């Protein structure tokens, strides 16, 4: 277990070093997510009054789109240099590589969300600060579920010719329950009086999805990655 976590940590640290140096994925995803929110704000906010519950939907759409972009680019980097093969040659359990890549994606999406949440709050008059702790837990659980499936699919498709098309086609139908749970949980937290019991229900559902998806991904990563 110690060896597993050590390898995951090394891979995550490498991914973050590469990203800090190039900032390619961070800038692209933040710019894309921010543009997405801005366009929706022009469409859905009239005279300073947003459409009811729009903020929650826009937040999760932006996270899903930015996440797909980040997943594709992270693995495209490994494909261009074929370094994913070198990672697969490491003398450790291959799922440790998966966990390392997943942690890197989670941190990246966490940074994107740090920009997105205040932006959506500002443009859609959404009181995200009403239950900050539950909001963080909800975002963390939803992002983990989305990224756990996405990391597996992005790694699996790395050598597919039409990977850019296939990734969203495979990813969105499977992660729709996560996005819906995220949206409903966020709506509950954005009520005039935050509906925390309802938010806790959706968080519990997200944690269940996370457990299922992470377990399945850890179980299938090695056979899927051995060509």
């Amino acid at each position, binding site marked *: 277990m110690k*060896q597993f976590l*050590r*390898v995951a940590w*090394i*891979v995550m640290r*490498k991914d973050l*070093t*590469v990203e800090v*140096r*190039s900032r390619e994925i961070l800038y692209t995803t933040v710019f894309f997510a921010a543009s997405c929110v801005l366009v929706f704000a022009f469409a859905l906010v009239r005279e300073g009054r947003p459409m009811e519950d729009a903020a929650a939907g826009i937040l999760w759409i932006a996270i899903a789109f930015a996440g797909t972009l980040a997943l594709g680019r992270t693995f495209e980097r490994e494909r261009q*240099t*074929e*370094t994913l*093969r*070198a*990672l*697969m*040659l*490491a*003398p*450790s*359990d*291959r799922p440790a590589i998966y966990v390392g890549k997943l942690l890197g994606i989670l941190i990246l999406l966490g940074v994107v969300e740090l920009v997105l949440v205040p932006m959506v709050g500002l443009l859609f008059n959404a009181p995200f600060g009403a239950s900050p702790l539950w909001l963080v837990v909800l975002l963390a659980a939803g992002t983990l579920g989305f990224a756990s499936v996405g990391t597996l699919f992005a790694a699996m498709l790395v050598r597919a010719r039409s990977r850019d098309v296939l990734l969203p086609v495979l990813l969105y139908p499977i992660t729709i329950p996560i996005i819906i749970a995220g949206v409903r949980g966020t709506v509950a937290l954005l009520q005039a009086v935050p509906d925390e019991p309802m938010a806790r229900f959706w968080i519990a559902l997200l944690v269940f999805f996370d457990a299922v998806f992470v377990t399945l991904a850890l179980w299938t990563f090695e056979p899927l990655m*051995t*060509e």
Partner: protein
Amino acid sequence: MTFDFDRLVVDDVSRNFGRRRALTRVSLTCHAGEIVGLLGPNGAGKSTLLAILSTLLAASSGEIHYGSATARAIGPALRARLGLLGHDLYLYPELTARENLEFFARLYGCPNVPAVVGDALGRAGLRDRADDLVSGFSRGMRQRLALERALLHGPRLLLLDEPFTGLDDASGQALVARLRDLRQDGRIVLVATHDLDLAEGLFDRVAVLREGRLLLVDNSSASLRERYREAVAAARR
């Protein structure tokens, strides 16, 4: 768990990609302290065989024995004894030479990483460029760095796919000398190459592949080019 072996046995290995058969019933045995040359035209199946030996690719049929055990029986510990230098060099261009080697040394669990990496940089002749990004390196410099990356953890079986690509004469000769040292050290080295001039006199045995079939395994003293031509001509007849 540590694992070691002194023999590599490829037993009746085939590999299909869809309908295309990339390798057909290849059998070959290599021993510790031996350099075996894998020759053959483009598409002969050399890289496929190396990928199967490195555990990156599964054989469609047949078995590979590392010593007396198969890859499945040994598990991840086998990969600690394998080194692969692919046609793509498996280096991160956004990292420096030192960071690349440190990353892989840690990944392989090498003890005393700074010393191991320092030695590797010295052997690659890149000590003065250690903190430069790999994206600024020439193909030859990358090739030397990639070879050291493959050797960081002291693998028993070294698999090299076109290792002479991009090397100037001096670097090519240095690589030949390095491979001879590794043979002396008891490693099993398999080299797939088209560079018959640089490889002349290097191989203990030569295996010639064509269209996925093993045409010849020999240790004659004739020139490499002659042996290769004869094998390919015999296959055409």
